[in-house]
């Protein structure tokens, strides 16, 4: 292993996203973060307006949509 040449990738060949196993974690974390953050905001709006659960649902759907949009933007073609 010490006789190997160190890998010298030309910089800048992967333009937008690091091509490694971090991509899967990034995709999953955008989705989960989106659902959690906007679900939390929706839940707080629920408690403020006393709406009985609908704002949380809207928040979750918005968060999932935002997460999907981010993944398509950052990791997509």
């Amino acid at each position, binding site marked *: 292993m010490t006789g190997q040449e160190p890998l010298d990738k030309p910089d800048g060949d992967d333009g937008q996203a690091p*091509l490694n196993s971090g991509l899967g974690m990034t995709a999953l974390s*955008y*989705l989960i973060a989106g659902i959690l953050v906007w679900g939390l905001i929706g839940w707080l709006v629920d408690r403020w307006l006393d709406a009985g659960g609908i704002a*949380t649902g809207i928040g*979750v759907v918005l968060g*999932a949509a935002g*997460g*999907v949009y981010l*993944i398509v933007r950052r*990791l997509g073609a």
Partner: protein
Amino acid sequence: MLLAEVHGSTAAIGYGLAAIGPGIGVGLVFSAYIQSTARQPESSRLTLPFVWIGFAVIEALALFGIAFGFIWAK
């Protein structure tokens, strides 16, 4: 007249049923990617972004399942 009765949380049953579709879907996406890379390895870089797009949309439905399981639970 009561014929049968199920106790417990139907949200759990709902989530279990809701996880079938996305499970098969994600499996299809990655199987397609692996097969296409096996047939033509140079195409792996071109098709990888679509893997993440497909995975995101499908997994969103799966995560809806678990989130609404908590929201709609009694």
